[in-house]
């Protein structure tokens, strides 16, 4: 029997709203006891947490693994390294790989492969199944078989399920399987050729705009369909005031609706595009300051359930182009926690709220047995120094692609150590 005692930690668990200084005893990879003045069993490894925050490992519910099919953007090894040092112990991958994860066997082997790489930190890997074959929106994927192979939800990844009838059928079928449908809420016709948020800045820059209505019309339509079908609808990377307002109303109405956002939509706005810097080319686009404030409000009042990295790495070549030709996306894993903590340091959210957004809530949305620090659960933990200051340097990322809209930004809060099933997968300074 292996044992590990992490002493003198500020134990924070968003699932039980608990926050106290104490010890965490881990036996055989599971949390055995949480309390004060715990005694280390014979032969146990003892770690002094130095009063830092010990909490459940983060659950990142929106990651583009880029494997298979895009090894120039990200590799499984780099992804696992980046996750471990960012306190992320579970990731959920989008199906927009090449080939697409619309095949049950591929989805199963993909998760197993990513989680079990040699000479690589362990990482729990889940995946969404494609909602439609090839993400083409024309024929429903084998949702039932995908679910049996472990798909935790269904999505067409970076494409909206645009056809209303197809969306109705996917929502309806997925409701039988008890899995959520994750929507990239952007009307592809309204957004066609769009380069950035439509507003005064797009007008001045001469860039083609994507109106906020592109998000609004898809969410409004989907909610109308959901009232017919039942089931669980989840909006990914929500970024507009109108979208947040629709979700707030739908929740009040009692619909089974959840949503997430990503740090850029809470921390940046469309002014960032002023020099045509392709680092700020994201999908969906950075919205207006009013939209950003609405996202903050949605995070604070619980309308927005989760914060995901939306890790969508792009290689340097794809970003060294005129803005409109550059690929949308950024490397998000390594700034997720610090960006989340900036909402705490900035006084927008409590620390428990921030941690819930990145651990307990996404696990609840997707039905994962993760994201909580409770006796009996797997010891997926991360130890965080809340105060440690650092500056974002994409070139130093573990991720293969270091393009980030947060380049040069000062951050406060860094991971000291990460454990999965009680095994160290990352230790700062090693």
């Amino acid at each position, binding site marked *: 029997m292996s044992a590990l005692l992490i002493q003198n930690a500020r134990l924070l668990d968003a699932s039980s709203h608990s926050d106290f200084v104490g010890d965490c005893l881990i036996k055989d990879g599971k949390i055995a006891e949480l309390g004060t003045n715990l005694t280390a069993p014979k032969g146990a490894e003892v770690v002094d947490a130095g009063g830092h925050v010990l909490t459940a490992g983060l659950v990142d519910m929106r990651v583009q693994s880029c494997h298979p099919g895009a090894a120039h953007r990200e590799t499984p090894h780099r992804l696992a390294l980046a996750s471990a040092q960012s306190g992320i112990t579970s990731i959920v991958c989008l199906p927009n790989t090449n080939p697409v994860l619309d095949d049950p066997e591929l989805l199963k082997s993909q998760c197993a492969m990513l989680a079990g790489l040699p000479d690589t930190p362990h990482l729990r890997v889940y995946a969404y199944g494609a909602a439609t074959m090839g993400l083409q929106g024309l024929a429903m994927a084998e949702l039932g078989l995908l679910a049996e192979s472990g798909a935790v939800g269904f999505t067409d990844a970076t494409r909206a399920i645009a056809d209303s009838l197809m969306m109705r059928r996917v929502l309806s079928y997925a409701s039988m399987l008890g899995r959520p449908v994750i929507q990239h809420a952007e009307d592809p016709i309204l957004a066609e050729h769009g*380069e950035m948020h*439509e*507003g*005064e800045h*797009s*007008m*001045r*820059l*001469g*860039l*083609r*705009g994507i109106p906020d209505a592109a998000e609004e019309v898809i969410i409004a339509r989907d909610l109308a369909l959901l009232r017919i079908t039942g089931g669980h609808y989840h909006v990914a990377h929500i970024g507009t005031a109108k979208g947040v307002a629709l979700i707030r109303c739908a929740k009040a109405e009692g619909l089974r609706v959840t949503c997430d956002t990503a740090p850029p939509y809470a921390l940046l706005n469309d002014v960032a595009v002023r*020099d*045509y810097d392709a680092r700020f080319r994201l999908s969906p686009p950075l919205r207006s300051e009013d939209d950003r404030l609405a996202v903050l409000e949605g995070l604070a009042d619980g309308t927005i359930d989760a914060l995901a990295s939306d890790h969508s790495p792009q290689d340097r*070549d794809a970003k*060294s*182009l*005129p*803005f*409109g*030709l550059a690929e949308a996306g950024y490397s998000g894993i390594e700034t997720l926690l610090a960006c989340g903590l900036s909402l705490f340091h900035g006084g927008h959210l409590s620390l428990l709220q921030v941690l819930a957004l990145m651990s307990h809530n996404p696990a609840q949305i997707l039905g994962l047995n993760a994201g909580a620090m409770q006796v009996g659960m797997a010891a997926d933990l991360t130890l965080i120094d809340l105060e440690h200051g650092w500056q974002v340097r994409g070139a130093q990322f573990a991720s293969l692609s270091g393009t980030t809209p947060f380049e040069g930004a000062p951050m406060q809060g860094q991971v000291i150590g990460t454990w999965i099933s009680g095994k160290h997968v990352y230790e700062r300074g090693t």
Partner: protein
Amino acid sequence: MARRAPLDSATDCNGFAPLAGKHLLGIEGLDRPCVEALLERADAFADLPPRARLDHLNGLTVFTVFFENSTRTRVSFDLAARKIGASVVNVPISTSSIKKGESLLDTALTLNAMHPDILVMRHPNAGAALLLANYVDAAVVNAGDGRHEHPTQALLDALTIRRRLGRIEGLNITICGDITNSRVARSNIHLLSILGANLRLVAPPTLVPPQISAMGVECYHDMAAGLAGADIVMLLRLQQERMQGAETPSQREYFHLYGLTAEKLALAKAEALIMHPGPMNRGVEISSELADDVERSLITAQVEIGVAVRMACLESLGAPLLGRAQ
């Protein structure tokens, strides 16, 4: 604001450098003294005899790199560069490796290795000129970047008006046509605002950005209202594909509502003048009779003035480079 040249002689090039930056990427951000110095200088060049050759930029090399088809702008830059004494290399894009997928930056680095002093570029994407400027040693002149800006067109429009009417301040200028997709409109809105004109736009709602009032202009959908009292009517080109049901229903409907005819022009001031950046769609933006009306149309004057304006722009960017070399 740099020193202003003595303006009595266009053949004297002592320290003329009103472009405070190293590049000319757009009108937005330029100030009135800078713009007026450029116009003064171009005005002097425009008075030179047609065959005059200056040596102000002797020893400098200007590359023109056009990623979009262009005749008048490219020829105008070419001629302007030669008239002011620079060597010119017209880099052919349609027959080069660009078509084989080379990226803009690779092209930029290749051209940079040949040490051009000034790069004149047109590109279909907004912001391409700024991107280029960040990667090359040469001074960059934006000859049009997507829907963003076309600064030398605006400068030549302004000078054409000034030479004909003696001023721009206080004039009622109506810009009519596809505002949304026009870099000429953006540059002209900035420049004519800097120079104190009263600007009005006329376009159907599908061809004007909804946030246009932030630019400090009045917008009309009714051409009659927009033309009332106008001193200048500036027409913009409407691309064929935009008239076939996408942004407007049809060519004939566009001409009916927004095409400039003698009847509509009668609503403007009696001596109102017509401008167009070219190439014109006769019978779409403008009736053929008006386009050829030498009394009212400034269209050929615009082309002629364009060379002088580009001489002034090239000189203001090139002269400081020569100063450094000496």
